[in-house]
Structure formats: C-alpha cells, structure tokens
C-alpha cells in the first residue's frame, strides 16, 4: 500500500476551513477492481485531513449497475450525506445519482465521468480518449521511423470509455501515415479471455507486430507478461494504469510506459470537494472546466506518463499532482 502523507501545514489550513460537523462521505466504485485499491487510503486520508465524520470505501459485490445503485441508495438510508462515485455506467447511473442529489447529498464523480445532463457536481478524472491518444503517440515515438503495425487490446465494449479509447488510438494513428492499426481485440477485461486471445494473437501475428497499445487494466497486465515471456524487447508497448506487474515490466524494460490515472488523488480531492459542497459551498458558475466528450463539468486530474525515467518514484508523481490540484482547488472551482 502506498503511503501518502499530506503536509502538516496543508492539513492545518484545511482543518480550520472545514465546518465543525464533518460530512459522512461514502466512496463507491463501480465494482471490485484493483484499480480502486488506492481509493480506500484516499478516503481515509481525506477523513483525517479534512475532519470528515467518515470517509468510507464501499464496494458493490460485483460489477453490476444494479448492485451499485442498490448499494448507493442503501447508504443514503444509512445516513451518508456526501458521495464520491465511480459510476457503473456513464448514462445509466444518472437517475440514481440524481435521486441521491435530490435527497440533499452532493455527488462528485471520480475516475470517470457521467454524461450530461445530470445533477452531480462535476467529475474529476483522466480524459480517457486523450489519455489513449497520448499513450499511442508515446508508443509511435518509441517505435521510431518506418512503416509500423500496432495492435490495440481493449476492455469491455459495453463500457463507453472503451469506445473513447478506441477513438483516441485511431486519432493518434491517423496522424502518422507510416503506422497502421493491425487489429483491435476487445472484450478482454477478464483474465481468462485476455490470456486466451492475447496469446493467440501473439502466436499468430506476433512477428508482424511492432507495437502494442493497451487501454484496459487486465489486457495491460496480460500483454506485459506476454512480452516478458517473449523476452526479445522488439515489440514496444504502452499500457495503462499501475498494476505492479506493469510497473515491474517498465523497470525491466519490457514495457515502454503506462498512462496513469492517479486514483488516490482523484478520490482524495473528490472526497474533499464532496464535503465542502455538503457544508454549503457551491460550484462556481465560471469554474474553468476542461472539455470532455461526456460532460461540460470535467476537471482533468492529469494523466501522468509513467516510463523508465520516473518509474522509481511513481508515488511522488501522483502526490505532486494531487498537491498541486488541491492547493488551488477550492478557490478555482468552489464558491464558499
């Protein structure tokens, strides 16, 4: 587990700013997933730093929209009054979240976005399409000149981010005449099919492939392992997220780099914002939100690029970003 220590000075400032009765903040991801491992310390740190009554991390038993909805609403019954949510579906989660906002509990979306219109405050996340675009650019850069073929391993097709990521990759490739997408293999966000399909691909077309871009957690892990097994380091790969397997592969040089999402920072800041909103603050009308395919109220938490140069201090990369965002967050986005 990564330790993030916010400076004492910062927390002292914030503690005075917080209202006496802290919010009971619930952090709810879409389902059990290693990605959200950093949400729990994020919530706890926010609880400690901002004097929340609670910063509880609650996970639906499965990746099912209905289960998440049921969990969220039952938390309202249990008295949670502010929420940080990774929506199970950017469209389908809206009615439930609107309902929750209707009960007077603010909702901040983290690590993903909800499609407009909705009553949630805003979302703080990585822009999936842009991240995939930049990742692909890095990959193309690392492959060097000459005609190249790349393969894209993506997650569930039913998840809208997957479509955005496919678009992002296509856009980056379109900017380079010499590069072509050889194949897109999707729906492999579970270990068994990922293993089966990626192995099959590598066996059949590995020799013709120059680069791999992966935009899902599991495909990244499986592809990183496949490259380690191959051992030649001929095929370049840029992945996503920070699974230890991937981090190690970057250290060992099998993987060029990975696009991070900073879940710790996202949950930490979102919990802070949810608490402030509950205590009477409102989102500024003229807040400088950035553009996002889904929503007009998007705060880019940044997508740092993890590579051999900075892989040793990933925690510091995340923390620096978190600190920077938090330091100006309230005055930039909130009216208190």
């Amino acid at each position: 587990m990564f330790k993030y220590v916010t400076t004492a000075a910062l927390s002292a400032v914030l503690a005075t700013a917080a209202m006496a009765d802290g919010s009971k903040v619930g952090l709810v991801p879409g389902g059990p997933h290693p990605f959200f491992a950093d949400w729990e310390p994020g919530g706890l740190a926010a609880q400690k730093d901002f004097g929340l009554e609670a910063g509880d991390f609650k996970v639906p038993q499965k990746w099912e929209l209905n289960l998440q909805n049921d969990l969220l609403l039952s938390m309202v019954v249990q008295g949670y009054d502010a929420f940080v949510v990774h929506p199970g579906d950017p469209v389908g989660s809206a009615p439930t979240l609107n309902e929750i906002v209707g009960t007077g509990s603010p909702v901040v979306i983290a690590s993903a976005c909800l499609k407009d219109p909705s009553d949630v405050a805003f979302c703080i996340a990585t822009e999936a399409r842009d991240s995939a675009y930049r990742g692909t650019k890095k990959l193309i850069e690392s492959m060097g000149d000459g005609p190249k073929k790349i393969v894209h391993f993506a997650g569930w097709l039913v998840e809208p981010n997957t479509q955005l990521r496919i678009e992002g990759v296509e856009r980056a490739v379109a900017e380079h005449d010499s590069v072509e997408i050889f194949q897109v293999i999707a729906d492999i966000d579970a270990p068994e099919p990922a293993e089966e399909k990626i192995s099959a691909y590598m066996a059949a077309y590995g020799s013709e492939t120059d680069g791999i871009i992966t935009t899902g957690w599991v495909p990244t892990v499986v592809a990183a392992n496949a490259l380690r097994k191959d051992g030649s380091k001929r095929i370049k790969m840029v992945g996503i997220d920070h699974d230890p397997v991937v981090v190690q592969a970057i250290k060992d040089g099998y993987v060029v780099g990975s696009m991070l999402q900073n879940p710790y920072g996202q949950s930490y800041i979102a919990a802070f914002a949810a608490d402030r909103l509950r205590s009477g603050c409102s989102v500024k009308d003229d807040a400088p939100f950035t553009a996002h395919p889904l929503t007009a109220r998007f705060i880019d938490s940044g997508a740092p690029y993890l590579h051999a140069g900075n892989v040793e201090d990933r925690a510091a990369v995340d923390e620096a970003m978190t600190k920077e965002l938090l330091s100006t967050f309230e005055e930039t986005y909130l009216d208190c």
Partner: protein
Amino acid sequence: MVCIIATIIISLKSPAFFSALNGQVLLEAISINILIALSQMVIIGVGQMNLSVGAIGGFAAISFAGMMEVWGISAPVAAGLAIAIGVLAGSLNGIFIVWTGVSAFVVTLATLAIFKGLNLAITEAQPFYNIPAEVGAFGNTTFFGPLPWILIPALTIVVCVNFMFNRMPLGRKLLAVGANSHAAKLSGINVSHVIIVAHCISGFLAATAGIALVARLQLGQPTIGDDWLIMSFAAPVIGGAILAGGHVSTVATVFGVIIVALITQGLVLFKVDPYLVQVVLGALILAAVGFNRWKDIQTAKTKPGMHSG
C-alpha cells in the same frame, strides 16, 4: 469431426495456425478449459449441476497465491492445500445437497455466493502478485517444442477421469446414480456417498484449474472463475452430455473444449470485427452442435430402429 473441419478451414485461411507457438497457445488454453469442463461434467454425470465451479476454482486460486505470498509456503505445499480447500468446498456442496434434499441448483447457487464472497473478503479484490518464478515457469514453458508443461496435469486428469467413468467402480456408480438414482439405491449403491464423492471430485478439478490459471497468469487474480460457468456447461453439452444425467463422455467433452478453443482462436486469427465477435461465436457454436445433431440423425436413419410393443 467438427474439430477436423474447423482445423482445416482455419489452417487454409491462416497458415500461421500451424506454427509451433500457436500450437502451444492452443494447447495451453485447452489444458485449463478441460479441467473446468470436467469439473462440471462429473456433476452432470450424477444428474445435477454445480454452479459453484468457478467460485471454488477462484477461491482455490487465491488461496494458492495467498498462501505463497502471505505465509511464504512453498509452491507444492500451497498447491496441495489449495486442492484440499477445493475438495472441502466440493464436499460441503455434496453434504448439503444430500442432507437437505434440496436441488443441487439452489445449494450450489448459495455456495457460489459464499465461496466468491470469501474470496472477496480475503482479497478485497486485490490480486496477489508475488507468484514464485517456478510457478510462472510451469504455466508458461514448454517441452518437446510446443508442448506446454501445463498439459501434463490436464492430460493425466483426462486419462484418470476417463478411466474412472469407464473402468472404475466409482465412475460406474456415479453414472448409475445419474441415470436412475432409485435403481442405484435398490442395487445397494450408497447414493448419498456417491453424490458427495462426485462433488469432491468436482471441487478437486475446479481447484486444479484455478491453480493452473494462477501459474498461467502468474497472478492470484480474485476474478479467476467468474467466467467459467457457461464454458463449463458448453463443452460437455457440445460433446453430447445429457443434462439429465447418466451419460457423459470424457473424450467428447475434450472435443467440446477443443471446438470452443478453435472457434475463439479462429476469431482472433481472422481479425473479426470486435463488434461482431459475439455474433460469430454464437453462430459457430450453433453450427457445431447442429452439425453433430445432423450427423446423429443420419446415423440413426441408417440403423434399423428398435421396436417394442
């Protein structure tokens, strides 16, 4: 038969199919899926269903990985203990079914939730990463060219299960119970024991599959097993098993697994539009079983029918 046709079509279209590496990949996928399919097949044999194969497999998988990472137990011991957990989980299924007399469907549905829940409670959805190198090596290296090591346990188990169903008293009793449990009881077979043993075997096979997957993925993923259910039924049923029980064929189940693996690989090799993969997969399964069925009808027509009355 279907396997041969599928192989010919795939290899004609894509010469890469016959590469050594491709053979290895195919064999690896088949090895693990065979264990999963057999785990279900044993229970189909006694005329029941085991919805918890995936949950048991996943639980054994994370136990295996967890014991090595957290307690530093050596791989063979951990594997032994994980298999013991699988057998125990299976025996719980069996004991509950026999004791309550409730359908296996309901009981294994409940235990599915329990085993999967324990899995989540232990891992909190975080994988175990520190898998010893030799375990990973077992899952990913080969001998004699394209033959993966992982094929050895799978093949051994196929032979054993086949031998059990065809030659061992236990296997015959299993089938007797599945075909007509009343008759089996009247013939002095202890039906309760047989059902419990069947579930133990199923648990054993599911656990083995889970451990093999850990070796293969070099990861103790908590999601291992989530997707097994349909595959576990599909292969035996494509292979002609009767869901009502009493008739299973190990060899046919293996062919069922091979057909599914060929289809999956074919979809990658032919670069099917990712949005169409599911449609093609479904259509091919339908075609495979349809062809088998058509062949059966043809052979039935040439044989004189049995008369009675």
